[in-house]
């Protein structure tokens, strides 16, 4: 129906062999795009794609669809040279992307043909013959170059899958280069932020104000509307519990700055691709271009009331625990950070929006030895047990933000633990008119001694294709935005995905051994730096331009 609305002739067949016959009868050049399913009775989609690639030189693009959302299936499709891999259910945005891709491909082919024709006409000398040969050679090399880039992308995807399953899960749903580009840019940005935080200023906080606060993360809520208020409220309540509020230095309603510069090259990226913007994180420029104007990481904001915590770096004193805030969006509730504090406490610098006052000046710098930039989840029982000085941190007592249960997940998203057997019996009470989700694992809240990385690694979030976390602010896809707000970032993108080695730190009441904590933090930071360097070295040859050209 969409194609009819757009006046695109479509030939549909029920079997793969019929598709090959139709291609042979009409000729490969008559078709701009082939869309096939993966699992078919007589021939699977991969075999069909290979058969098409062998028979038709002009390579009509094959786009795979599958209800099988396993990563191996998607990777296999990519290896075979599929231009897209779309998960079911297919939404109109996917169809639009396909159409635009086909249109762009056809347009580029026409341009190449015109160029070649004009060259033939201008000269009949031997040099023109050589030019023709070169053109042919280039056309032969382009597929090789394309495969090379595909290989690189595959390596990167494998690395991401290994290092950060959740990040991999976020970008695995399509081979769209824009999404991968967005993910790569975010990784680079994270590395950049980490380095900036190393050289950033020190924040001090008056020592006698805080206890250890538990530092938790809040899972992103990916409901489409109405979620920002409660989550913001939740976080704000947490902040309200901060002791420094007693001094009137912390706002009751904090509005944080978005991270990045509103202007970015991502819009250029989009125009270059010509693709739709429904699921492109690059559509949201703020994510791609950090706007680190000064060492204080004062980040300019837009008017969007999205709540983001500016990224700060903390250098832990020996007697202090680290605290950090990363850029998150509380609208999607991907993470919520409550700084950890000690008796000699520290407040993170929060960059307020233009509507709010500057709280940074109200805080004193602290020196921390940790340069950790990222998120942590409060769950370090051993650290809590080692104790820390407690003085009046009643307000922060048990200030843990539990990971929201799956009530807050989108209704058709399911979390299936890797290690656990899906207990079908658990489905029974959830099946019925009032249940919109299935919860396979009750321990999703991450309460316990497990590390965040373990929690993330243990679970695979299976999301339908109509839900793309990298969607940029579209409410229909669960952007998590209030209706009257516009987002220039993907509210569902979890920056914690960039934190490949997330650390968990939970500070509870009681004394703790800051020395142990500092050592622990340093080890984690060093490990994280090594991983970042490794990632960066891997990303270096995988340039953005190549990413654009490759797909």
């Amino acid at each position, binding site marked *: *129906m*969409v194609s*009819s*609305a757009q006046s695109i002739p479509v030939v549909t067949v029920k079997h793969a062999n019929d598709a090959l016959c139709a291609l042979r009868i009409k000729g490969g050049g008559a078709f701009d795009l082939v869309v096939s*399913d993966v*699992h078919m009775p007589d021939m699977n989609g991969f075999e069909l794609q290979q058969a098409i690639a062998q028979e038709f030189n002009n390579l009509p693009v094959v786009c795979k669809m*599958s*209800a*099988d959302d396993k990563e191996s299936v998607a990777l296999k499709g990519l290896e075979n040279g599929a231009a897209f891999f779309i998960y*079911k*259910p*297919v*939404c*109109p945005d996917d169809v639009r992307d396909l159409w635009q891709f086909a249109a762009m491909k056809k347009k580029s082919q026409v341009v190449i043909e015109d160029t070649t024709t004009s060259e033939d006409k201008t000269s009949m000398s031997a040099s023109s013959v050589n030019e023709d040969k070169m053109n042919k050679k280039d056309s032969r090399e382009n597929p090789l170059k394309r495969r090379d880039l595909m290989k690189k992308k595959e390596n990167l995807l494998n690395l991401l899958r290994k290092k950060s399953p959740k990040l991999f899960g976020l970008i695995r749903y399509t081979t769209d280069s824009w999404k991968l580009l967005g993910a790569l840019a975010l990784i680079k940005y994270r590395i950049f932020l980490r380095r900036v935080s190393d050289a950033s200023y020190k924040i001090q906080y008056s020592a006698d104000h805080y206890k250890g606060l538990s530092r938790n993360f809040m899972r992103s809520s990916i409901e489409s509307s109405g979620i920002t208020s409660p989550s913001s409220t939740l976080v704000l309540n947490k902040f309200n519990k901060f002791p420094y509020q007693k001094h009137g230095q912390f706002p009751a309603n904090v509005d944080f700055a978005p991270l990045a510069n509103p202007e970015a090259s991502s819009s250029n990226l989009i125009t270059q691709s010509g693709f739709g913007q429904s699921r492109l994180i690059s559509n949201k420029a703020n994510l791609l271009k950090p706007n680190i104007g000064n060492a204080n990481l004062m980040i300019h904001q837009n008017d969007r009331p999205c709540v983001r915590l500016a990224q700060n770096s903390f250098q832990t004193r020996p007697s202090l625990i680290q605290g950090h805030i990363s850029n998150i969006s509380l609208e999607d509730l991907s993470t919520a950070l409550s700084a950890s504090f000690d008796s000699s406490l520290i407040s993170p610098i929060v960059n307020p929006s233009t509507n709010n006052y500057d709280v940074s000046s109200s805080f004193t710098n602290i020196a921390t030895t940790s340069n950790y930039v990222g998120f942590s989840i409060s769950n370090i029982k051993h650290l809590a047990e080692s104790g820390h000085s407690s003085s009046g941190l009643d307000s922060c007592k048990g200030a843990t933000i539990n990971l929201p249960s799956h009530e807050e997940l989108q*209704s*058709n998203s*399911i979390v*299936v633990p890797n290690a656990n*057997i*899906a*207990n*079908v*019996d658990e*489905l*029974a009470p959830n*099946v019925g*008119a*009032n*249940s*919109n*989700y*299935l919860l*396979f694992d009750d321990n999703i809240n991450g309460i316990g001694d497990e590390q965040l990385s373990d929690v993330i690694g243990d679970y695979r979030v*299976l999301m*339908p294709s*109509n839900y793309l976390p990298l969607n940029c602010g579209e409410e*229909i896809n669960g952007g998590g935005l209030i209706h009257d707000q516009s987002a220039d970032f993907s509210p569902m993108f979890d920056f914690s995905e960039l934190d490949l080695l997330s650390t968990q730190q939970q500070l509870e009441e009681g004394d703790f051994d800051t020395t142990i904590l500092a050592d622990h933090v340093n080890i984690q930071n060093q490990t994280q730096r090594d991983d970042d360097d490794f990632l960066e070295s891997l990303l270096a040859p995988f340039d953005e331009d190549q990413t654009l050209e490759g797909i």
Partner: protein
Amino acid sequence: MKRALCPVCSGSIDEQFLQLQQLQDESSPNFVSEVVNIYFHESEKLLRNLREDCLVVVDKEFSDYKKMGIHLNQFMGSSSSIGAQRVRNVCVAFRAASEQNNRAGCLRALELLEYEYCYLKNKLHELFQIEQQRILAAGVRYPQQPNNP
């Protein structure tokens, strides 16, 4: 429409069904009903196949579970395409049980699947009936009453 009758509100279907409705226009006025009927027709076949697979499956027999997985994949794909959210969720659980070669789990999931499918079918039938009544009511024209002085 009463919220109790609305399958979207009850959680049986998600916004994918609404997108399906948006594809219906004057050129294809019965698009949704046609697609839904195809889905019902195929689903009943798949459910029969799944029940046969569950009955003949022997624990840890890979080929039986593989066959079940194929049918399940088809059912899951069609359910997700039509927006049958809960049916799809149960299919995911069913697939997990089959991957674990858990025969009891598969049987239990099959029961839940059939329950959810029946529930969805009833809801969609109600929806179409209400829609049909609405269309008929819109076409009714009452004779004009003469004005009495």
